[in-house]
């Protein structure tokens, strides 16, 4: 899986020169256990899965399987994140550790948070960290505010994807500002993925209909009553939204009805 695909895929998502069939990226947090994690992620069809980097427990559970046994890097593109980091320095340290952990793997998700209540991105720190990471050879996918100017700056720094929020992380509030996302999609050339705030399948479909290149979610699947079924729903929604975007929707005609059936050849009206 680590070598680039030889055969060009139809409508592939291309990130840092590598092609993916699935436009749904999923997190691996908040599941009941590893078995549920594995089944939900299989059902989602995702090829890119995020992981967090944390201190290991010492002297406990020495023989237990690890997440990377359940989601082997040979099968999935592992996307280490910097969740929980509030400074550029901590985010950079975390991703250097991740690169060592994953044998030199360069594709990473940068998120530098502003405060613990909103988990809103701290964009000055995010921009600083992105600059350092790009200079060190990382391929940075950056979680960001839905601000077109900042998204463009992340692209100019050299990020391989920008990932604006739809609404707050873990809120399930859906897409609160489709207009901003639309401006970002129109202006930024690297892939734009909506990250954070998706609540249900229609939210993912709307993101894709706007023209997003992909969607990243975790809680919407993990905290559904039936995560495996929701993972399946999200897969279908992302595919449906992408197809609708490519198909090109009909024009909206707010004050004008137009019959779908022929207006001629009706039977004689009752007298």
């Amino acid at each position, binding site marked *: 899986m680590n070598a680039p695909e030889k055969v060009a895929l139809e409508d592939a998502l291309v990130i840092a020169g590598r092609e993916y069939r699935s436009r749904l990226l999923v*997190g691996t947090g908040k599941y009941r256990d590893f078995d549920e994690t594995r089944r939900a992620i299989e059902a989602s069809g995702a090829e890119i899965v995020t992981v967090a*980097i*944390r201190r290991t427990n*010492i002297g406990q559970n020495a023989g237990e399987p690890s*997440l*990377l046994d359940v989601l082997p890097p040979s099968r999935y593109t592992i996307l280490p*994140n910097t969740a929980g980091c509030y400074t550029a320095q901590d985010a950079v340290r975390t991703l250097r550790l*991740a690169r*060592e952990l994953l044998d030199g793997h360069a594709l990473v998700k940068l998120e530098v948070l502003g405060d613990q209540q909103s988990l809103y991105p701290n964009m000055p720190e995010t921009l600083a960290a992105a600059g350092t990471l790009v200079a060190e050879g990382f391929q940075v996918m950056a979680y960001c505010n839905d601000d077109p100017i900042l998204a463009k700056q992340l692209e100019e720094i050299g990020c391989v994807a920008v990932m604006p929020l739809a609404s707050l992380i873990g809120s399930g509030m859906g897409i609160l500002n489709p207009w901003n996302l639309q401006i970002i999609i129109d202006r930024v050339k690297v892939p734009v993925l909506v990250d954070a705030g998706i609540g249900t399948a229609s939210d993912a479909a709307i993101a894709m209909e706007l023209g997003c290149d992909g969607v990243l979610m975790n*809680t919407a699947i993990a905290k559904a009553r039936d995560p495996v079924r929701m993972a399946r729903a999200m897969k279908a929604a992302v595919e449906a939204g992408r197809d609708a975007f490519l198909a090109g929707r009909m024009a909206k005609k707010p004050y004008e009805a137009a019959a779908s059936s022929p207006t001629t050849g009706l039977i004689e009206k009752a007298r």
Partner: protein
Amino acid sequence: MPVRVHVNGAPRDFAAAPTFEEMLAELELAGRRIAVERNGEIVPRSRFADTRLADGDRIEVVVAVGGG
């Protein structure tokens, strides 16, 4: 000479400065998929056998866990 280091925030005492390989074996982490940082700098896996801890080192040992 005895050394005290901090591993993931907790103090650890050794009778003599161990290599990283020896320390990880003692902590039952040998062979696990981990990454190690000393005082903010990565210690590559390839250097575990020939790099020794020093008194006062602050060590972080991390793994991949579920996250979004």
